[in-house]
């Protein structure tokens, strides 16, 4: 029964800064925002679309998706109300599209709405999305926690440049979700109450929700697992020893689910040498003098023991992987070759490539040049442990490694003026994690196209940080974008994945990182989800009596 279970206390240690997913896209903001704002359809724990505001999922079969793949028609559920009691209409949906695609708005999710030509609203319940061309995967717009529907009435004045200064709507959006905001303290705490107009009169079970921010993962885990101060803590990524100890606390349990986030080492295919003039460093002008030889790249991968990395760094929150796309299952290639370490094999490969230790100092060399590389990543305890371990193994096969750790704000900041961004890649190898939104890997695979290589002419804004460039790959991506049939798509994605990993070792996947959160034993009906927000079914949660 609605509101019968009192208060729900949730901990997001990275505090919520806005509830409008279009202005932040920080996972924490999107997730907490999803308690209030909903998309037309969401993803369940298996990555399957299920209707939220929509009456059903449009498909080719039921005619919701046009046969030529150029449009999709959504129908809203009947009698939907915003939390202020006004009806939800197709105008709101259309407005949401306009809001996010306004050129001055700086919408963080505008990628979701790419390729839309127009949106028609033949009636209050119907939304027709027309694409510029055929879309084999037409479910990008209005699905998942990152693309919720805004209330037109509330956000009408917030279009374009006004978006950021619309403080009141951004922090207290009117939504259709199970809860509505009663108080919002930026980067600190959000209090919510059950939405009286929620479509299911029995839900939610909790009368109020407090989403608290601040602290770190360890404290968050402890607050659920040890002290029981909170019911649920998001992203309690802590080291395995701690996990074991916390679990012994008996007040809660860790929940995990694996998605597409992969911690990987990216190899620079161009020369990052500081001797090159600025503007030519790490550009396609100069191929990497060592890594141009695929055997060296493979040796690097073989020397790594991914099981140890998982055991040291992630415990239950990770598993070793050889794939760039480890999920959804239909897309995952069955690579396991890299999972066993092979130091001797790596040494042999190096020797085959001409790298031998001629002067006996433990470091291999070739043509009088030592094999010495710079290995960078962000400041983060787990990554530093990884660095130390990997460095040890690489030393073992005779490679000299210099470690560098960069403030994540700089590394991921993309500031063209800074030498330390991951796109500039002024190092030989770098390590970070990346994933893709939703369940469709196509945009993810197209990051490795030749024309996405960052460089001075595009202000280092490309996504192809390895500077990998293979016409065969580019052709295959093109093929993918024209293929609608799921099985065929999966086949192509697997091939692309293998080209980058197993075949060329341009990307060395290490760990498939799952979502890892802590849940109190007093909460029931919680289902972990790695395809949508973790709070996707908060309306169903109940307290154990």
């Amino acid at each position: 029964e609605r509101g019968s279970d009192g208060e729900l206390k949730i901990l997001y240690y990275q505090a919520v800064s806005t509830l409008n997913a279009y202005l932040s896209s920080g996972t924490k903001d999107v997730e907490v925002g999803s308690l209030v704002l909903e998309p037309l359809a969401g993803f369940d724990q298996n990555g399957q679309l299920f209707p939220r505001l929509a009456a059903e999922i449009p498909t080719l079969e039921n005619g919701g998706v046009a046969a030529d793949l150029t449009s999709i028609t959504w129908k809203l559920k009947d009698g939907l109300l915003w939390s202020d009691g006004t009806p939800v209409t197709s105008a709101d949906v259309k407005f949401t599209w306009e809001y996010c695609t306004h050129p001055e708005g700086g919408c963080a999710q505008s990628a979701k709405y790419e390729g839309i030509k127009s949106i028609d609203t033949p009636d209050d319940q119907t939304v027709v999305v027309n694409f510029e061309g055929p879309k084999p995967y037409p479910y990008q717009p209005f699905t998942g926690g990152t693309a919720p529907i805004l209330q037109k009435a509330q956000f009408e004045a917030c279009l374009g440049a006004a978006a950021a200064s619309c403080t009141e709507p951004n922090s207290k959006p009117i939504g259709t979700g199970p809860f509505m905001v009663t108080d919002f303290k930026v980067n600190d705490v959000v209090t919510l109450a059950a939405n009286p107009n929620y479509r299911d009169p029995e839900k939610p079970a909790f009368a109020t929700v407090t989403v608290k921010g601040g602290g770190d993962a360890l404290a968050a885990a402890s607050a659920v697992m040890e002290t029981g101060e909170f019911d649920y803590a998001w992203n309690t990524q802590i080291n395995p020893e701690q996990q074991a100890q916390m679990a012994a606390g008996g007040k809660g349990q860790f929940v995990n689910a694996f998605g597409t986030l992969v911690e990987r080492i990216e190899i620079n295919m161009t020369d990052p040498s500081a001797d090159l003039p600025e503007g030519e460093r790490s550009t396609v002008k100069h191929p990497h003098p060592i890594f141009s030889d695929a055997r060296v790249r493979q040796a690097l991968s073989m020397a790594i023991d991914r099981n140890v990395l998982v055991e040291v760094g992630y415990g239950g929150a990770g598993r070793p992987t050889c794939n760039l796309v480890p999920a959804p299952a239909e897309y995952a290639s069955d690579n396991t070759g890299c999972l066993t370490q092979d130091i001797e094999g790596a040494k042999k490969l190096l020797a085959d490539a001409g790298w031998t230790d001629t002067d006996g100092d433990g470091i291999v060399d070739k043509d009088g040049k030592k094999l010495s590389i710079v290995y960078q990543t962000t400041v983060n305890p787990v990554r530093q442990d990884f660095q130390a371990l990997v460095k040890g193994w690489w030393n073992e096969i005779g490679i000299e490694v210099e470690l560098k750790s960069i403030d994540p704000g700089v590394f991921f900041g993309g500031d063209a003026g800074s030498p330390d961004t991951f796109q500039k890649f002024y190092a030989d190898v770098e390590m970070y994690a990346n994933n893709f939104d939703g369940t469709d890997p196509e945009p993810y695979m197209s990051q490795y196209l030749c024309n996405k290589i960052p460089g001075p002419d595009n202000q280092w804004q490309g996504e192809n940080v390895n500077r990998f460039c293979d016409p065969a790959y580019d052709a295959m991506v093109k093929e993918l974008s024209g293929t609608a049939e799921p099985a065929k798509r999966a086949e192509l994605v697997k091939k692309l994945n293998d080209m980058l990993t197993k075949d060329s070792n341009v990307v060395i996947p290490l760990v498939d990182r799952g979502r890892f959160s802590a849940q109190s034993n007093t909460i029931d009906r919680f289902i972990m989800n790695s395809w949508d927000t973790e709070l996707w079914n908060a309306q169903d949660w109940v307290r154990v009596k």
Partner: protein
Amino acid sequence: MLTFTLRRLLTAIPTLLLISLVIFLLVDFAPGSPMSDIPLTVPPEVRQKMMAALGADQPVMVRYLLWLKQFFIVEPQYALDAAFGTNFADGAQRIISWQSKVPVFQLIGERLPQTLTVVGTAYLIGILVALPIGIYSAYRQYSWFDQAGTFFAMAGFSVPTFFTGNVLILIFAIKLGWFPTIYDTNLSVMDWDSFVKMIKQMALPVTVLALFNAAEISRYTRSSVLENLNQDYVRTARAKGMTERTVLLKHVMRNSLIPVVTVIALGMPTVFGGAIVTEQIFKINGIGAALIGAIHVSDLPTVQTITFIFAVLIVVFNLIADILYGILDPRIRYD
């Protein structure tokens, strides 16, 4: 005294302007971008647009002047409007946080209360503990009390707060479970229960900060009292037949407290700075936590504004210290 105060105020203005420029530029030059927090799934073009929407692509000087105007003109107008229901601001653009898209001053307004309660209480307790210890230590110089007091004071400011804080959390919050580990900023004292809760959650951070403050202030008090104990007027007071109590608590105290009070005033802003670490340890979402958070995501307007407010605080408390000195010391008061 009045001209002195006015003069100090006048000289403070160019200093503040200069500081504002330095802070603005320094923070701005720092590498890092407001986009670092955005997931890598967001493509570069989108990022570019987001930057533009924030005005982050404007030249530094333009942003500085705008910020200056917002800080000194627009924000006070909004403050007036909020207080008196006027409409001076007339919808002018406020300083907006890049990360959370709310006015930075609103954010500060939300954060200040918890910082002030914790820091203020800790400072107050620190002072109340420090003064008697300092005075008695000086009075009984080299006694065991003095030695012990010296040791604790030394230890107080030698042991970093992040060490003591974490050890205290481990023992009292986790092992013994006496105190909560997460500070509840929504808690307001309404009744006895919430009061007890408040006390509980403040206990550890206040202890740590108070210990640190007490250490410093007690050392100051001690040396100031020692200095005054050797003054001729103390001998005069004794020669007049005053009791030791009167000599110490009236004559010596009053003189010794003059420098101590100014040190206390000067210490206020540094305590805010020290609170950054304390807030970090005890998970208090105060102003220090806001600053660190903003630094981590390169939320420049927030960093610049909070940093500059700290600078203003320092300058203001310097001024207060000077004025207090004048008020307490008649030799200066009558100049």
